[in-house]
């Protein structure tokens, strides 16, 4: 992902905006990228990085596909966590906004599949968050491009369903990954220090990990980490619960 400058003419005046550009050098990725564009082009949501442009450019004589995303002027959550644990209120704000983004894409039956701190941008004094990089998101109705038995996502944040390489994931999977990310934000470190297997067999209780965490917040996060997908809360109700918590903490 590169930071780029997008120039255009608006009302007869030249303008330029920052954008985040992703190049896809591997022609084998073309179909996946096409899908990503089809699914996300036209999406407008304040908690999602939106596509602003896509096409092909020539790089050393090779035609390369690119997608330009709205540039989010903020700090990735993983970078922020390196400076120490986040307060409960900030965690609730991040949770509210990312749950809102997951809810929105799921209303189009799209699953992000890579919800992790590196893909959450904090803005506005850490009180707002944007979910970025829907590069491996998949629309439910489309056949999987991933070979059977393989899965996408970031190790350490995968849901039990992703680990089983289930092809038709749902928003439950993104909710699980968000739960892991929230625990990490509260603790200032990955809840199992990167051990994926423990996460999908006996995820730690939030209150054990961070005894000082607000009880209501810990309770919701623990539900998000339920090993059986139906027992996890849906993103829509989560938005409401986290918004209430963000206001009260």
């Amino acid at each position: 992902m590169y930071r780029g400058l997008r120039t255009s003419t608006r009302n007869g005046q030249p303008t330029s905006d920052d954008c985040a550009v992703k190049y896809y050098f591997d022609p084998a990725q073309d179909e996946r990228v096409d899908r990503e564009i089809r699914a996300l082009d036209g999406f407008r949501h304040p908690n999602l990085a939106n596509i602003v442009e896509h096409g092909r450019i020539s790089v050393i004589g090779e035609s390369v596909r690119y997608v330009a995303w709205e540039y989010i002027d903020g700090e990735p959550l993983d970078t922020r966590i390196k400076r120490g644990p986040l307060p409960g209120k900030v965690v609730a704000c991040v949770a509210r906004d990312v749950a809102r983004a997951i809810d929105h894409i799921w209303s189009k039956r799209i699953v992000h599949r890579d919800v992790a701190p590196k893909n959450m941008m904090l803005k506005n004094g850490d009180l707002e968050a944007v979910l970025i990089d829907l590069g491996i998101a998949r629309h439910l109705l489309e056949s999987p491009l991933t070979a059977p038995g393989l899965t996408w996502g970031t190790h350490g944040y995968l849901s039990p369903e992703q680990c089983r390489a289930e092809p038709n994931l749902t928003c439950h999977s993104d909710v699980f990954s968000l739960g892991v990310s929230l625990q990490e934000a509260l603790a200032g470190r990955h809840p199992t220090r990167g051990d994926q297997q423990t996460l999908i067999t006996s995820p730690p209780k939030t209150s054990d990990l961070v005894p000082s965490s607000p009880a209501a917040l810990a309770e919701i996060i623990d539900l998000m980490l339920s090993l059986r997908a139906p027992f996890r809360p849906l993103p829509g109700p989560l938005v409401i619960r986290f918004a209430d918590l963000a206001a009260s903490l």
Partner: protein
Amino acid sequence: MFYYNAKYTFALPGQAPTAIAGGIIPASAMPAGQLVRRDFRKYPYLQHRLFDPQLYLSSLDPDVSAKSVVNLASWPWFCPGAVPEYDSDTHKSVKNWKDLNAAALLQSWRNCVPNDAQGIGDAAKAAVKAQMELGCEMIILPGPLTTLATQQYAKETEWVDAGLEACKSLKVGIPVLATVAISDNVLRGLDPTQNPLLQTITNQLSARGELAGAYILPELASESGYVCTSRETLLCLLLLIDDLVRGAGKTALVNYVGTFGAVASAVGASVWSSGYYRGQRRLKLADFEDQEGRAMPRYHSLKLAGDIGLQNDIQTAYGQFGDRILIDTKDGRSLIQALASGTYPPPEWEYSQSNIAAAGGHYVEIAYRLGQIATQSSSARIETVKRWLEGAVLWSSNLQKIGITSSSQTELTHQAVWLNAFQTWRSHAGI
């Protein structure tokens, strides 16, 4: 709650209780044009009615299941526009309409279930619209029969989403249920607690906030009797219900599992449905084949959780245990009296073709009584069902000890399987 699984004649058999909570009308019961003209007010239980679009029957062979196929094909989600709708002015009687159009309906049946997005959307909308017009209390979205575990439930979820879209466009304001129709072929032989298909189903359905729940029916392709005897199939059913109800806070309705519906109720199903005839107690595609045979009376024992043969076994059982294995119902009273006075069988329980009014009323009264456990607390329901099944296992053993064997009339093998499935669910759920 117990809902009566209605047939063509909506009237309840014998002296079955009229206070039954509701009914489910299957699309195969009669042609569309006839059902929309039926007066539901005459049947108290149908004041709370559901309509099952039965899309899962789309693979019926019109050559051997002509009667059912003609009825099903008259509904627009199967064969839209295949023939003119029944019109009383034009056709005078449903029989005339059938005589005129049966051949065309049978001809149009093959491959008429849509497979493309537009066709699925139109079919789903037609099924939702029909249920709104019939005044149903909930919408059952049409769904295909799951016969392959390898297809990741993708086609089924396509139908669910098409149905939800239809509900949105038709501004449906009542609860919406997805149909979960699964062949037991994909449930048997696998540990239900590790069955990936089950996990996919509950994952997909629970992720759809617009769904109130699911209408669940196992297709008992592998069963020959009236009851399900597969521990895996029954445990799968209980796990599905548990994940949807306790996990996702949704509603579960169950049909075609006989009085095992009471076990489903203890696990969290809000409605279960059954009826006297085999085709009301179980779902098996082969049962839809045109047959000339007539039903024989069967005595259902609540305590045994199964039937006892009327030809010989009931007298043997009575001789040893008296009326302890029988239960007093309005229709069953004459049977107990006849056994006690040595005048068995009374005419209404005589083992002869179609003499099923008393047996039917007796079965429905038992189902109604079992349905009353829905009024108990969750823990009381579980305890009631546990005691009931433990008692049934004991009675099965007692009957075998006096030489009664399992047969097509007397059911003695499933009780231990039902109890095992229930206890395994309890252990799995930590309840």
